[in-house]
């Protein structure tokens, strides 16, 4: 990604060698700033240095409750570092933090595509090896400065009254608005929607990469008029399906699992589920980086991770975590070796070369 792509969002290190236009804007602002003569935030930054606190960006709802119980509370008990949560999750906010130097949160979780984007835009920090040593974790634990935490499925779910049995069984059915008329909903997230569109268009799972973007966007064009709303927050997807505001939706397995438990009249299909991995990432330049890495290191340890994963039906990425999960439960999780082998997993290495291109294209496509 070039600097101009992220329009003025550049880290302090990047700021110097930039276009002439931007420099003059900066000097223009600096003059104005001198006129204003206000510099309150200096106080704020000084105070941040030795705080025993950490701000974690969360998805709210069920995610946050599970994280609180399995990760935050035990971490605070062990280290005395208080964890405060900040919602909603926003990639833009992560980028804005580096631009403004004011950190709303220190740690966040990113999916594969966002991790790639954040890494390329230099929005996240490399691991502090004194605290979190990649060599001491399992192979492949650290990717693009993100620390793998858990895998989750992007599954298909729908309202029973709209689509009586057998209902929708694949993404192709989801796309087939003739046979299954009704409103649709997907996440506003290029890295998951594009593979789903290709699967719907008949691409075989093992032929998914490299992504055929032209084909994907053609398929997306067909479903676009039927997308009633694009969801961006986990609990939002849950609410939309629960209230019946949308008839069929692509959403995370955890969120929909809560609805199944609450006996909502819905059906979930794991067929062709697109499995993404969530990585812990630390915002670059945050004054609380040390606390942040201590937390990330804790969060991927087998025992806390196992608890967190079980509560949410996530697949732990740390293989050791399965030692703490009863086998009958483990067999249901996305990363249980037998399941993981057969599922469509978004692989960072395969996606990386295309992330920049498809993210940009998706943004433009969705806005037009």
């Amino acid at each position: 990604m070039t600097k101009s792509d992220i329009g003025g969002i550049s880290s302090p290190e990047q700021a110097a060698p930039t276009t002439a236009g931007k420099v003059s804007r900066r000097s223009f602002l600096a003059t104005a700033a001198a006129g204003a003569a206000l510099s309150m935030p200096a106080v704020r930054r000084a105070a941040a240095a030795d705080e025993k606190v950490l701000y974690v960006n969360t998805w709210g709802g069920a995610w946050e409750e599970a994280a609180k119980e399995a990760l935050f509370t035990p971490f605070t008990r062990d280290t005395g570092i208080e964890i405060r949560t900040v919602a909603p999750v926003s990639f833009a906010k992560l980028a804005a933090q580096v631009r403004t130097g004011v950190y709303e949160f220190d740690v966040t979780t990113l999916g594969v595509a966002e991790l790639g984007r954040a890494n390329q835009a230099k929005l996240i920090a490399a691991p502090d090896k004194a605290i979190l040593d990649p060599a001491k974790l399992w192979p492949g634990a650290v990717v693009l400065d993100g620390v793998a935490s858990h895998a989750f499925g992007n599954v298909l779910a729908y309202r029973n009254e709209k689509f009586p049995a057998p209902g929708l069984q694949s993404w192709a059915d989801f796309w087939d608005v003739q046979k299954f008329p009704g409103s649709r909903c997907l996440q506003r997230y290029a890295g998951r929607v594009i593979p789903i569109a290709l699967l719907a268009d008949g691409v075989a799972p093992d032929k998914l990469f490299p992504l055929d973007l032209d084909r994907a966007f053609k398929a997306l064009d067909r479903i676009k008029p039927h997308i009633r709303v694009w969801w961006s927050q986990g609990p939002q997807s849950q609410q939309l399906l629960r209230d019946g505001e949308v008839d069929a939706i692509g959403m995370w397995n955890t969120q929909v699992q809560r609805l199944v438990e609450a006996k909502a009249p819905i059906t979930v299909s794991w067929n062709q589920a697109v499995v993404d991995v969530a990585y812990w990432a630390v915002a670059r330049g945050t004054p609380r980086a040390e606390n942040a890495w201590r937390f990330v290191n804790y969060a991927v340890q087998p025992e806390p991770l196992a608890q967190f994963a079980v509560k949410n039906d996530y697949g732990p990425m740390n293989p050791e975590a399965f030692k703490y999960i009863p086998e009958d439960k483990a067999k249901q999780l996305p990363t249980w070796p037998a399941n993981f082998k057969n599922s469509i997993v978004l692989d960072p290495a395969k996606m990386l070369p295309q992330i920049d291109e498809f993210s940009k294209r998706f943004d433009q496509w969705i806005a037009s």
Partner: protein
Amino acid sequence: MYSEKTFPIKLVAGLIALFIAAPMFIVIPMSFSTAPSLEFPPPGYWLGYYQRFFTDRNWTLPLFNSIVIGLGTTVLTLALAAPAAFALVRHDFRGKALLNLVLMMPLVVPHIVMALAYYSYFGALRLVQSYTGLILAHTCLSMPVAILILTAALKTFDRNLERAAANLGSRPLTTFRLVTLPVLKPAFLVAGLFVFIHSFDETVIALFISGRDTTTLPRQMFNSFLMQADPVLSAASSVLFTAVLIAVAVPAVMRAMRRRRPTPGRA
């Protein structure tokens, strides 16, 4: 005498008023609902969402922030607008029309434009996510409201009172303190109240420039909309509505009570 059937038009007006009031008939019952999301009529009633509104830090902090920012904005706006209103009403000077235009402009410029403006400008000044930034932004936007109310009040102010005081030997500052200010006090109160509400309700700019520790109530409500639209929103809404109800109804009732006293010339 003229004969005009007033009933049909009154009925129409009444029905439209009902429509205008309709949301409140929904939001208030919703706030006592036990339903986890948007469901009307509610399946059951409890006070749980109020409890969350008043105890959950995710809601109490924004409430507190909005009050602080609203008060800060009120004080700063009045401090700047009051003298300007005096200048506009009592003096003629070069550039008065231009000044008037600039003072009124924040009323017309769309908030999203200012949100972008502040996001980038305050970003460079390191004022995003600070009380200061929000108070400065809200003060600009509230300036026209305060100016309008204060100039209107000043225009009706009888300057003979001041002249009389001066003739009696009172110094200008004393006159201001003992004569001008007490007469204008209601106007200041009204202007202050309107400015406060203006700041308290402002959503778009707060969405872009407030942050973790300075989140305002409207921003938290907006995010809650997106997150899960849970009924804490309806509790928050009902609290806000009740506050407005008190602010609007109490003066009206007081006026009505005063009107009860026999007034000459009214049979």
